[in-house]
């Protein structure tokens, strides 16, 4: 509405007023509006007409010197910037100011909410909440919380998340409100898909941009034909695609102990069952799983190479769901649903157990050299969640699992003058128990508070017991040897985290994590077979009691519309059992440049240190190592990593990601006297029992440096009837120790020059899907000493021409699988059939050297493979 022309002042002059540059030479630095107008009219030959009642009444003094150099028109526009106005120029020198009223600055009100899935009530992390009018957006945090400033009045909000229909609502905002957008699963979309309209770019301020969702695009099948978070990591370039009998994660040159694996915020020290048969995660239980290779948020600490964070579902809030599944290796049962009618309390539990005994006793024994075999593993996972109100939640999580392999062998040899009666029993396995209580609360819309207390106990036990009775002529000799390797970690932990939403472009986060790990790494041996299990034999006084405190601060913000900055610092204090305290600063930085909806470039730096180390056998895919803490002599391992990534959405749902990294390690640890308990276990050729007297692990470790660098690429097709990926990496990882090879660098055992995997997933119909998956990897390195020479002793010595001087043959395998799913009226049926290693390549698990029985000076090499062509079946019923 036009309020009117108020007054006109006429001035005449010789210069055109629009060209004149204004200079204020007044004695005063500030003038009133009226004084400025008078000054312009007097000195620049203009006439300015305006409504004095409107402009003179509430106009604040004007700092005139900053107006120097502007034209008269620019000066007037500047003076009127807080008014809705029109400035009309009439020749020869008249300005008319039309005032339509003072500009209204909209009042902003902070709203908050929690995004959940409509059917189950599960919170959704990473959903985008979008203010359509103001083009502002925020992303929900781990508990589904979001907060956003919007103008008072009607606001059109949109909420989007991959795989769900868009939620749209016009919300009338007159005061602070709490919303609960419920997203509906979009069944019309294929399971693996991504919105490619630039609306969702996968970057959010709660977490670093290098976080990789493990369920959105990946369906990597393990040897048992299953998909789970751990298998899905193998699609990610820079994470090794697997190997013969290999378990655990090997990320960017790191070994299997360098990964922080979290289940609902609690550490897991062993994520796999024997030889990688299955991971400990039961897929039905998992809500979300992510992995990070660099750009770690400062809240994470303790392991050098990666962070894998697995979150359990709270459980369906409205319906009771049950799933029963069986495969050739294991059976499982899963249940979730509400407790009570209000839906405030939910549960989510699952149990999986190996079902191998019938196969072993009925079939397996006939084909193996062992007199008794037993393989047992189980996983029990559960979570109970209570929501006091939408902003306050308490959850209790637990995990219990174990792994046990037992092999028993009796040897009896009889000749005219020689009798040998030997009994050999080997066991190995681990046990893990974890409890956690977690509280989260959204306080006054801008503060998210979380607290967690937990307990875990992990132990791995390996034991080889030998009984020999040898009779030569008439003389009998009896010997026994019991060798036990035990490693346990018992840990209490407490966490407090605070997240503060400074504004829509800025989130601060901080917290303190305190844990009390007690470790007991022991190797024991006895001339008699000891009674009791391994844990009862171990001396409890040999426990190392330590304390680990991490204080962190994160500052995540958007700079403009295209640059995201994630900075943070973690300060670590580790107190050893011998009262040495290590203090470390761990800076983190991740810059993400997002110039276009289809392009993202990121640069990240992280320093991580590790206070608990795994002294392990080399290359063996069995839990046979010792977990040991820092001590006065054993310093924390440190890794510094730089990386860069470029991501682009190509045409037709093709997505390309390219990456580079370089990583350097300090205080890298090498175990110089590994306990090779399983050498005899795995060998088919008789060997001498190894007797290792170096039981003090601290005397058998050396320290050095390591370095790794690599190039990574993945091309993904994420929608359509045909989907899949090609993922590959080139890496080089070396280690350097003064005591090895004269201090020269040598390739790490897990160094892989090339690692590549590809998969094609073809939907035949809405029920049938076919998948092929191919993996290729350069063989791991190993050391083999073949140069024999005399010594001053009665024994001959062996020398290798360098550490890790050979490589195993390349590993490659093809897996074909077919999947069928159908929804019946009362239940859903799911069936998978797969064939691992279709062309039956005998990949090398390990290579060993042995003497010719008839000619002891001649040695030969054997290659051992454990996974030839292997068919698998799995099915499940959900009702």
């Amino acid at each position: 509405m036009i309020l009117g022309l108020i007054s006109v002042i006429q001035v005449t002059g010789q210069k055109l007023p629009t060209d004149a540059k204004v200079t204020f030479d007044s004695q005063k630095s500030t003038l009133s509006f009226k004084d400025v107008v008078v000054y312009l009219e007097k000195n620049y030959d203009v006439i300015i007409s305006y409504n004095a009642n409107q402009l003179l009444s509430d106009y604040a003094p004007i700092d005139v010197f900053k107006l120097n150099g502007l034209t008269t028109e620019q000066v007037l526009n500047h003076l009127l910037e807080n008014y809705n106005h029109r400035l009309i120029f009439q020749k020869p020198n008249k300005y008319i100011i039309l005032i339509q009223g003072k500009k209204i600055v909209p009042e902003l009100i902070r709203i908050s909410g929690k995004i959940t899935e409509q059917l189950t009530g599960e919170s959704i992390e990473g959903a985008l909440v979008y203010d359509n009018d103001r083009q502002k957006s925020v992303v929900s945090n781990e508990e589904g919380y979001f907060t956003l400033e919007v103008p008072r009045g009607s606001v059109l909000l949109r909420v989007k998340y991959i795989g769900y229909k868009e939620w749209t609502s016009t919300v009338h905002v007159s005061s602070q409100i709490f919303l609960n957008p419920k997203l509906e699963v979009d069944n019309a979309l294929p399971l693996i898909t991504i919105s490619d309209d630039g609306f969702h770019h996968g970057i959010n301020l709660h977490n670093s941009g290098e976080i990789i969702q493990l369920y959105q695009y990946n369906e990597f099948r393990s040897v048992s034909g299953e998909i789970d978070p751990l298998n899905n990591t193998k699609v990610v370039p820079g994470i090794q695609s697997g190997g013969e009998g290999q378990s655990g994660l090997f990320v960017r040159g790191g070994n299997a102990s360098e990964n922080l694996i979290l289940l609902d915020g609690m550490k897991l020290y062993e994520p796999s069952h024997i030889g990688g048969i299955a991971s400990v995660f039961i897929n039905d239980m998992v809500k979300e799983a992510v992995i990070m290779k660099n750009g770690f948020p400062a809240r994470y600490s303790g392991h050098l190479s990666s962070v894998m964070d697995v979150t359990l579902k709270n459980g369906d809030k409205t319906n009771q769901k049950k799933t029963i599944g069986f495969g050739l290796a294991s059976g499982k049962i899963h249940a979730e649903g509400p407790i009570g009618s209000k839906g405030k309390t939910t549960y989510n539990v699952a149990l999986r157990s190996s079902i191998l005994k019938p196969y072993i006793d009925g079939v397996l024994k006939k084909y193996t050299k062992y007199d008794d075999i037993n393989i047992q593993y189980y996983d029990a996972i559960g979570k109970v969640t209570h929501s006091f109100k939408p902003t306050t939640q308490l959850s209790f999580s637990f995990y219990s699992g174990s792994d046990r392999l037992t092999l028993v062998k009796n040897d009896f040899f009889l000749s005219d003058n020689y009798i040998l009666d030997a009994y050999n029993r080997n066991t190995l396995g681990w046990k893990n128990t974890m409890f956690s209580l977690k509280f989260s609360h959204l306080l006054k819309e801008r503060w998210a508070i979380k607290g967690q207390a937990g307990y875990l106990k992990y132990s791995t036990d390996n034991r080889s017991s030998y009984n020999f009775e040898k009779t030569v002529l008439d003389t009998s000799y009896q010997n026994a040897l019991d060798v036990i390797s035990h490693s346990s970690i018992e840990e209490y932990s407490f966490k407090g985290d605070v997240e503060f939403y400074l504004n829509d472009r800025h989130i601060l986060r901080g917290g303190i994590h305190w844990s009390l790990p007690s470790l007991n790494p022991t190797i024991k041996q006895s001339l008699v077979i000891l009674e009791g299990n391994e844990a009862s034999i171990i001396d409890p006084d040999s426990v190392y009691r330590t304390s680990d405190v991490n204080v962190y601060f994160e500052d995540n913000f958007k700079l403009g519309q295209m640059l995201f900055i994630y900075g943070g610092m973690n300060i670590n204090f580790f107190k050893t059992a011998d009262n040495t305290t290590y203090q470390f600063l761990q800076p983190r930085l991740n810059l993400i440049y997002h110039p276009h909806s289809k392009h993202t470039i990121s640069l990240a730096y992280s320093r991580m240190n590790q206070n608990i180390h795994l002294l392990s056998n080399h290359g063996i895919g069995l839990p046979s190592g010792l977990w040991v803490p820092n001590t006065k002599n054993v310093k924390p391992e440190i890794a510094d990593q730089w990386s860069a990534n470029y991501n682009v959405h190509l045409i037709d749902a093709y997505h390309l990601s390219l990456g580079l990294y370089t990583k350097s390690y300090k205080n890298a640890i090498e175990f110089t006297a590994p306990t090779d308990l399983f050498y005899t276990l795995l060998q088919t050729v008789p060997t001498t029992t190894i007797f290792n007297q170096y039981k003090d692990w601290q005397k058998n470790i050396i320290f050095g440096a390591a370095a790794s660098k690599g190039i990574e690429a993945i091309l993904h097709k994420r929608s359509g009837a045909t989907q899949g990926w090609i993922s590959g990496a080139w890496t080089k990882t070396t280690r350097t120790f003064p005591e090895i090879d004269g201090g020269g660098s040598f390739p790490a055992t897990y160094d892989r020059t090339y690692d590549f995997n590809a998969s094609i997933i073809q939907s035949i119909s809405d029920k049938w899907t076919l998948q092929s998956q191919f993996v290729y990897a350069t063989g791991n390195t190993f050391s083999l000493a073949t140069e024999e020479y005399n010594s001053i002793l009665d024994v001959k010595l062996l020398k290798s021409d360098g550490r890790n001087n050979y490589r195993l043959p390349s590993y490659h395998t093809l897996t074909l699988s077919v999947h069928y799913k159908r929804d019946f009226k009362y239940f859903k049926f799911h069936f998978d059939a797969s064939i691992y290693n279709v062309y039956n390549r005998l990949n090398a698990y390990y290579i060993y050297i042995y003497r010719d029985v008839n000619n002891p000076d001649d040695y030969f090499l054997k290659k051992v493979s454990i996974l030839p062509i292997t068919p698998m079946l799995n099915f499940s019923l959900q009702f």
Partner: protein
Amino acid sequence: MFLISYLASCEEDFVLHKKEFVPSVVVNSVFTVNQPWNVNLSLSRDILEHGSMIQYIDNADVIVIENFTGRRNHLKSIGDGNYTSEFYLAQPDRIYELEVHVPGYDVIKAKSKSPKFSEVTISNVVESSEDKTTQVAFQINDLNSNFYIWNLVVSTSSQPIDTFYKGSPKELIYSIQGYNQLAGLASHFTNPLNDAEATGGDYISKHIDFQVEEDTTTSHQTKRYLRLITASKELYDYYKSVDKFNQNPIGSSLTITPEIFTNVNGGLGIFAGFSEKYHEITE
């Protein structure tokens, strides 16, 4: 099927592609004060080269040089790769250099010292009839930084000096390793120490367990000794590395064969000095 394949494991012969093997010259010599020089020379072999044997070198020129005087002592070949001399025997606290000329190879050199004897005071002896062990506490009185290796020696009628040690330097370390094994086994869970690197002015008190075997067949009185070897650094490092080697199986891709220490430049093996003394253990 899965389990059958998993546990029945497939094995097949494996051919390793490796570069051409060139044998190394191997020098083996330990020396002690006032004992004849003995040096053994041989060539290493590739154990994957079937039919190959370790060859002794009898056509080399072997010289022991005393660093202080520069005196060169040419050793005499006596066959099977052995070279010896009874002249210019090793003196305490002297540095000696070995020079070996083998046709077709560069000159091979090694250097070591003959350490002085170190004195020992036995301070306490505790016998345990329950587990048949004896515990000996002793002090090494030495003002210099040295390397020590010790073991217990039992003298019986059938084995008048030592159950394991036959008095020959050749078996020096081997006998100690045999002792280590038995001491470790007898004590079941303890970790007996039998070597140390001590700094000058300090003293050491260590407890050792060992099993006493009663000799009831003769009237010969069983005597027990603490044998203390004062080793050159070369011998000590060699001893430690060989000890580790003996506890690891010969190669597989799952294990690593420990590196053996050598001070022989241009070859393999050891040239190292030591001294030793016996101290009778009385209750």
